């Protein structure tokens, strides 16, 4: 049973804090499914879920509704909402640095990244960018000391407990291990984001 801590967020929001990102995924799903009063948006993040409310919504009623949610994590967490395979060429500029930081060889970094499925935990940073969680814990590395001013679209990176793919060229500080041709964001597609909340993501070596 997940019991979030409720934190104030002005007069039109409520911040729910839980223990880890796995609980966030389950709690955000439950909040979307529960049809809570006055909720405009559900914003999952690393340890929290922000409920953005219609102005004038009675915060007490939202607090009571959240307290009444029965949110449980099964042995494997929530069932994934869809599955996406992303082919990657593992020739990123930082792959040697990631190997050094993790104590793995470069082939072992690739094996770890492709060896188990990731999950879409939350978005942010840019449309279509997904923070992926649940990967091999040996791949946890700090961001680069200095961000790059331009990271190409399709770059596959690591930062902290997360992996992610840059939807478009942008500045960025993640450790880059590879690149993909997958289109992460396409407004002509419904939904535009390739990686949607709760989806399972499998990285595979391109051409195999």
């Amino acid at each position, binding site marked *: 049973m997940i019991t979030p801590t409720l*934190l*104030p*967020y*002005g*007069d*039109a*929001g409520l*911040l729910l804090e839980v223990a880890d990102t796995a609980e966030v995924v389950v709690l*955000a799903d439950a909040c979307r499914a529960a049809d809570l009063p006055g909720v*405009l*948006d*559900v*914003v*999952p*993040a*690393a*340890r*929290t*879920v*922000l409920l*953005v409310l219609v*102005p004038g919504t009675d*915060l*007490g009623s939202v*607090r009571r509704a959240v307290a009444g949610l029965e949110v449980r994590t099964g042995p494997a967490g929530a069932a994934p909402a869809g599955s996406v395979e992303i082919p990657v060429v593992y020739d990123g500029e930082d792959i040697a640095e990631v190997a050094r930081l993790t104590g793995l060889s470069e082939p072992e970094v690739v094996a770890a990244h492709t060896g188990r499925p990731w999950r879409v935990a*939350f*978005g*942010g*940073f*840019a*449309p*279509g*960018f*997904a*923070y992926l969680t649940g990967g091999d814990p040996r791949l946890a590395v700090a961001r680069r000391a200095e961000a790059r001013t331009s990271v190409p679209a399709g770059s596959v990176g690591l930062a902290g407990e997360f992996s992610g793919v840059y*939807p478009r060229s942008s500045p960025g500080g993640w450790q880059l291990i590879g690149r993909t041709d997958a289109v992460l964001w396409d*407004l002509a597609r419904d*939904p*535009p*984001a390739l990686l*949607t*909340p709760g989806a399972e993501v499998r990285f595979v070596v391109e051409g195999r």
Partner: protein
Amino acid sequence: MRALEVLSTGPQALVQDLGRPGHAASGVGRSGAADRAALWLGNRLVANPEGAAGIEIVLGGFAVRAAALLTVALTGAAAPATVDGRPVGHHAVILLRRGQELRLGTPPAGLRTYLAVRGGIEVPPVLGSRSTDVLSGIGPAPLAKGDELPVGPEPEAFPLVDVAPVAPPPAGAVTLRVVAGPRDEHAADPRGLAGVAWTASSRTDRVGMRLEGGTLAVPDGAGSLPSEGIGRGAVQLPPGGAPVVFLADHPVTGGYPVIAVVLDADTDRAAQVRPGQPVRFRYVGGVS
């Protein structure tokens, strides 16, 4: 054809409606009019549905020519306005005949003027909204000279009032009401925002209002968090101690602590604060 031709834009002119809530998990923010109350008022004056798109104009300098008989209204910052050289009122219903030109000077106070058009600006919506999000680049491009803006058909409702007795944005200090938290413990003085006479910095835009005039001390070990959702009105405290008030095009998530959140209604007033204008904060409670 019901349309407006853009003759000049001033520093920035954007199509805005009430935004596209519900896409944060895909990294898309709500966006929408920076001063929603002003857009609402304009739409009410021309009897539009509240979600109709209008034009958000920063510091005047904007001009359009009507391609048909159109009913419009100006709200928000009270930019002096003329139709074919004849002064017209603010917060008032204005008729533009075909070929007539509406021109805006620089408002004496406030930052953003709204032009509501009966029928609404009907550029193609993106994810359910015609708002331009300057942070993510989603939505119509910023307006440029020569743009033809299609205007929708007249709604069934008719304008009921000619003038709305609403005060335009003030020139002096603006006080914003805030609720402490969710991360006020990340400031050495959790209520420190109220103790500084802040000034809106020149680095202020639709994403956020950066404040100068002081800094808030950040205790050792505080100052950074795993990414958290950001809402409109969030007052974020970066490690340098100079707070940022997030406005309409705020990022979806961020890793610096939010020490207080501006009351929703006051975020509209914050969006009218000019660079260099004094800003104060007043804590309010009882919204638990």
